[in-house]
């Protein structure tokens, strides 16, 4: 390349008043005005959200059909940490309520809410649309169909140790997600109306299949299935929690790893590819990871809707679109949101419980409609 050694853009001094060593004022300015999110700011936000999450989880654990006082909770926790077991700080019933019922449920709620929010953020980048949500698009229904099918055939567990229901959910969710993408895509674009329409149709068909399964099941088991489908966090135990936490940790970390690529993917397919993204490969990865996470949470909590759309949207308004902060922050906020929703579900009509899916749908549905109406012009 005799003539081809074009001078790289960087090495020429040119007329630009800036050279290599002037970073500080520029970047300080950018950080100050919020033009970029520095990693310092990122960690501060995340630590703040972590603290808030701990508070929300602890406070929520006190509420339910039976109230536990904050003092009892702290005393029991302190004893658990120092002595290693509950020994006299609270009476046996309170201890059992707290550690066998309340905490596993609240922590599961946190896990489920956080996962749904992260999945929503990833789907929104994948589909380049801020209204994407695993529930609205039918990914949750696909996962639920997989789980219901496994329940019908009695294939829920292998050797009664590990629950493989999440994997059935994964298979169903993956099928739904690929169908949605294929149905909605036209000429390399994903118009919002075809996405929503494809989601509506797919949801209707999958729901019909699920209803078919519940109708041929024996009534005793189908009642449990229907309660689960409505979106519920009961009952939970530590083993189930640990199993789901494993799926969520693997899927969530792998998804977080894609954050810089997700940023670029939002700019459109041609731009992403011209910036060096192998779009086909990353789409496949995102299909697999979001379906795995959706399958895992649907298998324990059924159909909890709108968190995946509501939370990333709200978080984006507050801290911007950079997925390196958006995804972990959405996880915390989504977790807190579902924990609080579940607290409402437990206490609002106590001793009766409302399915938590009803609470989130009543909170998220209107927000969805508001976005659809208010931002209609920008959604096409």
């Amino acid at each position, binding site marked *: 390349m005799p003539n081809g050694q*074009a001078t790289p853009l960087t090495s020429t001094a040119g007329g630009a008043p800036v050279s290599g060593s002037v970073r500080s004022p520029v970047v300080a300015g950018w950080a100050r005005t919020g033009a970029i999110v520095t990693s310092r700011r990122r960690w501060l936000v995340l630590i703040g959200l972590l603290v808030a999450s701990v508070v929300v989880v602890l406070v929520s654990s006190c509420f339910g059909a039976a109230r536990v006082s904050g003092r009892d909770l702290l005393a029991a926790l302190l004893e658990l940490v120092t002595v290693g077991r509950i020994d006299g700080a609270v009476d046996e019933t309170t201890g059992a309520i707290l550690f066998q019922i309340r905490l596993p449920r609240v922590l599961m709620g946190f896990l489920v809410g956080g996962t749904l929010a992260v999945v929503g953020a990833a789907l929104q980048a994948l589909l380049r649309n801020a209204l994407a949500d695993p529930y609205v698009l039918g990914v949750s229904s696909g996962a639920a169909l997989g789980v219901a099918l496994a329940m019908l055939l009695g294939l829920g567990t292998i050797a009664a140790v590990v629950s493989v229901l999440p994997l059935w959910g994964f298979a169903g969710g993956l099928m739904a997600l690929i169908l949605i993408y294929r149905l909605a895509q036209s000429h390399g674009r994903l118009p919002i109306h075809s996405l929503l329409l494809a989601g509506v149709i797919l949801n209707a068909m999958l729901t019909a299949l699920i209803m078919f399964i519940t109708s041929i099941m024996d009534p005793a088991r189908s009642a449990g299935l229907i309660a689960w489908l409505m979106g519920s966090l009961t009952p939970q135990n530590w083993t189930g929690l640990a199993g789901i936490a494993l799926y969520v940790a693997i899927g969530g970390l792998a998804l977080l790893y894609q954050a810089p690529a997700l940023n670029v993917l*939002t700019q459109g397919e*041609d731009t992403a590819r011209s910036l060096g993204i192998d779009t086909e490969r990353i789409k496949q990865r995102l299909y697999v990871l979001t379906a795995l996470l959706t399958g895992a949470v649907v298998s324990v909590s059924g159909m909890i809707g709108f968190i995946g759309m509501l939370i990333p949207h709200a978080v984006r308004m507050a801290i911007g679109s950079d997925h390196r902060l958006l995804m972990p922050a959405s996880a915390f906020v989504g977790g807190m949101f579902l924990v609080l929703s579940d607290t409402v579900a437990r206490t609002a009509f106590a001793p009766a419980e409302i399915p938590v899916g009803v609470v989130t749908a009543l909170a998220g549905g209107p927000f969805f409609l508001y976005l659809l109406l208010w931002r209609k012009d920008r959604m096409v």
Partner: protein
Amino acid sequence: MVTQVLSRSDDGQVTTAAILAVEKVSFRYSLSQFGRPWTIEEASFDVAPGQVLGIVGPNGSGKSSLLKLSAGLLRPESGIIRLAGQAIGNLSPLAIARTLAFVPQEQAHEFPFTVAETVLMGRFPHRQAGWWSMGMEAEREEDLSTAHRAMVEADVVELADRLVSDLSGGERQRVMIARALAQEPRILLLDEPTAFLDLNHQIELCSLIQRLAKERSLTVVLVSHDLNVASLLCDRVLMVKDGKICAQGTPVETIRPEVLRAVYGCDVVVDSHPQRGVPRVTLGVVQ
């Protein structure tokens, strides 16, 4: 063929001076229909470093497809495209992105990214973080200063903290060019860069492109439907009609009434630009 001027790859030899060489490339959309006509048929051209090449032609003639083929975004059915001597089909997307930047005609702005964040995305192909960073790595010093320099070049430094979705068309176009420059490319591909711009923004953009070509010896390939912009801006012009390149050469050689009649099928008046002497196209008498 109307005219065939200045085509160095006629003999099939790879000219080493060319940074981008397109050799006998044919392409059509939709593999299923074999009866379909070619979108691009047997196209050959090359670009030397620092050159500004304009691709012009009627709507639907295949201009944008030719540009996307050159960017490696579309795969040719036959023929070969060489980027700095290497077949583009053998290069990874990241390797292409470190040499060539592409600015599409329209751009998704669904998500509220700031201008600085958008320009920094141009550093993606130069990312060096390992898996242990879990995707959470911070921008390096070098990325920030390169992005800043690109923003100075494209005159968008003042917009750093604004949201791209809130900008005007001209500002947005400059942001996209700044992002492309942050890639530190040797070739810049632009699809209809002046399409939605006011007169003043068109002039700004043209002078920016010329400055980059002259001062940075950046190679520029642009698609335009504006013959006067192409005439003023480009060292060479490709005329495309029905997927075929039917004329290539300097603006003086290609922007001529008989060529334009053959390509566009209408009569126009071509005279000289009063200041620059390059061809100037005016609509003929309309009855």
